[in-house]
């Protein structure tokens, strides 16, 4: 009986091997699990896999199982180095294993594997410091998104000079595609920056912080913003006119109108220089 060749149809074989590789647990638990035995019972699996001179059937399938998780642990670390640093090796490995149970890869594109990480953090049980990790994962995911979006033309100093004084108020300023704003409740950017610089990250603390992330010359940048600058930029990004954005920013600000109006010109100049915008639309 043991020598008998077991014929397993191609589709059933693939469903079995795929379930066996993705099962979270030991190799024996995997092959004896309901999900895997549903495709091929344990006793048949042992007949179906050939042992080698040096490895048992279980050890051979085990090689594929361990390579699967190690590969995806590494892949997700490319997009989420700060999450990995915060959790530490063992907890990060466990985090990825649990994540893949809920969100196994469904795309040929490994970038897509990252998309659900912030949502998983939001909803999965037993996540330490969930609110901070959610912010950190959202920031890291946005950086990898911005890395891949298309290049847009840049607003030049000449474009700005061509706008006459009377139309500024009604002008809309369109940001580049590789641009995003964040309002955080923690020192999220400082944490990420420390991980990037390979220095000891700061203690996580509650702190209102604001950040612009963007790409210039195919390189990613992050610029911390003041509360007032963030308010004005988020109105601009939302498609409000420059006049409305200034009025709203003044309303929300604790600074006086004069002080804020004085800052607006400097902010705007530096944002154009940083390459935040692609064009100005006038009515």
């Amino acid at each position: 009986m043991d020598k008998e060749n077991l014929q397993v149809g191609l589709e059933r074989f693939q469903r079995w091997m795929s379930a066996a590789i993705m099962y979270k647990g030991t190799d024996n638990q995997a092959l004896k699990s309901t999900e895997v035995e549903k495709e091929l019972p344990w006793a048949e699996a042992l007949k179906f896999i050939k042992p080698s001179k040096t490895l048992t059937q279980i050890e051979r399938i085990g090689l594929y199982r361990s390579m699967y998780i190690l590969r995806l642990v590494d892949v997700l670390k490319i997009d989420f180095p700060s999450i990995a640093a915060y959790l530490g090796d063992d907890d990060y490995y466990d985090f990825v294993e649990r994540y893949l149970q809920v969100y196994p890869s469904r795309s040929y594109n490994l970038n897509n594997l990252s998309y659900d990480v912030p949502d998983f953090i939001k909803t999965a049980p037993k996540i330490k410091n969930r609110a901070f990790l959610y912010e950190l994962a959202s920031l890291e995911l946005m950086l990898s998104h911005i890395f891949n979006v298309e290049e847009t033309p840049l607003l030049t100093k000449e474009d700005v000079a061509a706008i006459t004084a009377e139309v500024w108020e009604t002008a809309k300023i369109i940001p580049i595609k590789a641009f995003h704003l964040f309002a955080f409740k923690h020192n999220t950017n400082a944490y990420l920056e420390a991980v990037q610089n390979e220095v000891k990250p700061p203690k996580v603390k509650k702190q209102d912080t604001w950040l612009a992330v963007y790409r210039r010359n195919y390189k990613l940048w992050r610029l911390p913003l003041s509360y007032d600058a963030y308010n004005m930029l988020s109105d601009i990004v939302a498609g409000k006119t420059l006049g409305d954005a200034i009025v709203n920013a003044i309303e929300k600000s604790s600074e006086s109108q004069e002080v804020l109006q004085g800052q607006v010109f400097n902010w705007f100049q530096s944002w154009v220089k940083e390459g935040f915008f692609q064009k100005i639309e006038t009515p």
Partner: protein
Amino acid sequence: MSKNRWNFPDLGYGIGLRTVHYPTILEESPAIDWFEIISENYMDTKGRPIYILDKIAEKYPIVMHGVSMSIGSTDPLDIPYLKKLKELANRVKALWVSDHLCWSGVAGTNIHDLLPMPYNEESLKYTISRVKQVSEILERPLILENPSAYIEFTSSDITEWDFLVALTKESDCGLLLDVNNVYVSSFNHGFDPNEYIDAIPSDRVVQYHLAGHTNKGTHIIDTHSDYVIDQVWQLYERSCQHTGGRATLVEWDDEIPAFEVVHAEVLKAKAYRKQPEVAMVGV
């Protein structure tokens, strides 16, 4: 010198394009014959990867090598993926497009591994029909690479090399002969690699892969993390005696050394590539 069936050019000695080598390639324009890209790394991005690839493709011949076609999967073909693959091939004027004889997932999930097929009549017929469909969509012959494997199945009743002989003939596809993979699988499964090399039809071989691996004693893992070992060079030399030599490439994916080191490794191939020992007179 024998030719491959499609007269694909012998490009000489290339290496796999890897991000760590971008600065050297862009700043120094090294005198290397050609590059092979991992197709998926450039398919869903409009950012830096494709920007850099366009620059490199202006100066060097490019060959595309994919890891996600999953030709052997019983899931339907991913048509949007194939269309993007074709677009990229046209964009970079790829000399040919290759992937692996393997499957990567089933039932909509992706394991992101090059999983082995059982080799039998059912899988052969199935793979032949899939290769034909893909070649039609890509409007070019598909070139398939022999995988390295760590597991075998009792439902296999033909050898991998007999499977490849029949597959290439019946589906009219080409072969990317990975000599290191032949060695790795021969070690793991206990067959004679010379028999494999001698069985491969020369006119189907379009390209060679060479790489280093990790010998764990009981088995070998195809890590692409080291220099090519002597036994693999000898197999390469043996195959070149049949084919007269083809475009040859070294893959190095882990612990990647400097550009010059990888380039020097592939240039070693020149010494092993001699004219066929036996002239094919009157054949």
